[in-house]
């Protein structure tokens, strides 16, 4: 009784000049699951994210989301279809407040015609009120409403990372791609983030995650895909991944040694 596939990656290859970042990648994401991509630095995880969300064009392969091919679409068109990502390198609207960040993220949920805006029609005012209420809900969901009025550039790192997730959630994703969301967070923040992932899941949002924090990866993933040098070396549930000799050799071994030392 596996859930239906929502995202299907077939034979995806990404080349930068002579360098092959991703080679013949094939995997599926099923409705409602948390699927994590792991792999050593430079394995091609972020590149795969960039291709799925339209930031780079793959050299070959298909990316199909709920029956629609995403290859060739622009990022905003892909976002409009419910596929929304966060960035590995912290990325917010730093000159705006937290609240305005989320309000901006709500772009796809707004219904305001430019002419109606300039004429100052009451429908625009009502829509704004609705969006403000929604922004407030999202800030609460992520747990950062206390500092809603503060400028993003003045926020501590942990909250900045939460804000990124809040902005992405504002775009109403059905598939949320998170690129190393807890990197740089302390253990308490990471633990809190894991419960946040639970809340996001409860909303029916499917999650594709890239993460190096093994405690979190093992704790929240339904399935893990391990990449090495652009290729998939394993695709299995966490318990099996931990025992997979190739994964241990290419990635986990090195991590475990580092964690102990």
């Amino acid at each position, binding site marked *: 009784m596996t859930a239906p596939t929502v995202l299907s990656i077939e034979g995806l290859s990404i080349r930068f000049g002579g360098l092959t970042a991703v080679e013949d990648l094939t995997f599926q994401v099923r409705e409602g699951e948390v699927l994590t991509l792991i792999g050593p630095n430079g394995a091609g995880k972020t590149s795969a994210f960039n291709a799925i969300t339209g930031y780079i064009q793959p050299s070959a392969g298909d990316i199909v989301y709920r029956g629609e091919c995403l290859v060739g679409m622009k990022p*905003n068109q892909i976002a*409009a279809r419910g596929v929304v*990502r966060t960035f590995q390198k912290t990325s917010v609207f730093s000159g*705006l407040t937290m609240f305005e960040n989320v309000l901006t993220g709500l*772009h796809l949920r707004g219904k305001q015609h*430019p002419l109606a805006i*300039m004429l100052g029609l009451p429908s625009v005012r009502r829509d*704004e009120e609705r969006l403000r209420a929604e922004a407030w809900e999202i800030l609460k969901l992520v747990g950062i409403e206390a500092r809603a009025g503060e400028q993003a550039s003045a926020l501590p790192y942990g909250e900045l990372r939460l804000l990124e997730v809040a*902005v992405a959630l504002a775009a109403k994703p059905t598939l949320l791609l998170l690129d190393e969301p807890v990197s740089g967070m302390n253990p308490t923040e990471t633990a809190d983030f894991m419960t946040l992932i639970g809340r996001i899941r409860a909303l029916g949002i499917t999650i594709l995650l890239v993460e190096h924090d093994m405690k979190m990866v093992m704790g929240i993933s339904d399935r893990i895909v391990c990449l090495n040098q652009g290729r998939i070396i394993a695709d299995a549930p966490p318990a099996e991944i931990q025992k997979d000799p190739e994964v241990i050799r290419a990635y986990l071994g090195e991590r475990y040694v580092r964690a102990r030392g």
Partner: protein
Amino acid sequence: MTNRILSLAWVAFLISIPFWMEDLYYLHVLIVTGIFIIAAMSLNLLLGYTGQLSLGHVAFFGIGAYVSSLVSLGFEIHVLPNTTVSLDPKPVWFAMLVAVIFSGLCGWFIGRVSFKVRGAYFVIVTVSFAEVVRLVSLNWMELTQGPMALNNIPYLTLGIPEVFEVEFIGKVPCYYLVLAVAVFTYVVIRRLVQSRAGRAMIALRENEPLASSVGVDVTRVLVLATIVSAGLAGLAGALYAHYVRIVDPDVFLFIYTVTMVIMVITGGKGTLAGPIVGGLVFGIFPEVLRGFQVQPEIQWITYGVLMILIVYFLPAGIVPAIRSLLPRRLVEGGDGSVEPNATAEARS
């Protein structure tokens, strides 16, 4: 709320000026400054909110001036050997409307052309566009009279002929006309930047990849901003044409674009009040110097020094600097707490 009272007080003060300002020359300075402020506000929509520097902004201003003049004067041109296109003179209000629409279309064109170009390339596209338009105005003698200028441009009249008519001729009526258009421009831009469309523009300025990741169609937003910005600049140009009532290719001078950019940057780009404050400073300041009877060279040097000082010491501009001096509570709208409905108001 405080903001609204402040704005109304401002407008009331501006309305009162012709009642006590006896020297009509100063009123003239205010009219020209007002027209430039309208153009600067329109530039601010692009430069301050979408973050794109249009160094050819005067093109839209000049196009507005020429189109409005030509439609109100009428013209006849020979396009092909046996074909002539002619237009009978139209009412000025109609000509101004055509000017706004035509400038807006030019903005649309520039927005489309700049589809993939940002930053330096956008600057080059806009500068080239302005230069091309200037050359057209200079050389298409049959239409524009070239350097001989379009003369006797009619002034604006509003109302019902024979019953009740207002003639916008002379300083006082023109002053109120410019004030009304400036308030209109301010309101349109304010509504825009405090809405979903404006947030998308700001998003484009702040972080383009993030903006597109939440579904902002970057091209669309840029095109909308250039259309509105160009249309309003065209409106300023049309006002100018029917005020001075003579238009020549010098309306396309690069120095005017530079003046607008200086007004926006010193006042505070990306703030609603910035272009107004910057415009007042740089529109009135040269006249103050003239009042002291300083030589033109000294005037220009002082002008330059003032600009450098402002940009150096207040890099974000005058308005943000003043705002940062005000107690935070006042800026946030009173009680310091941030309610869902209070934030945008507070930051406007």
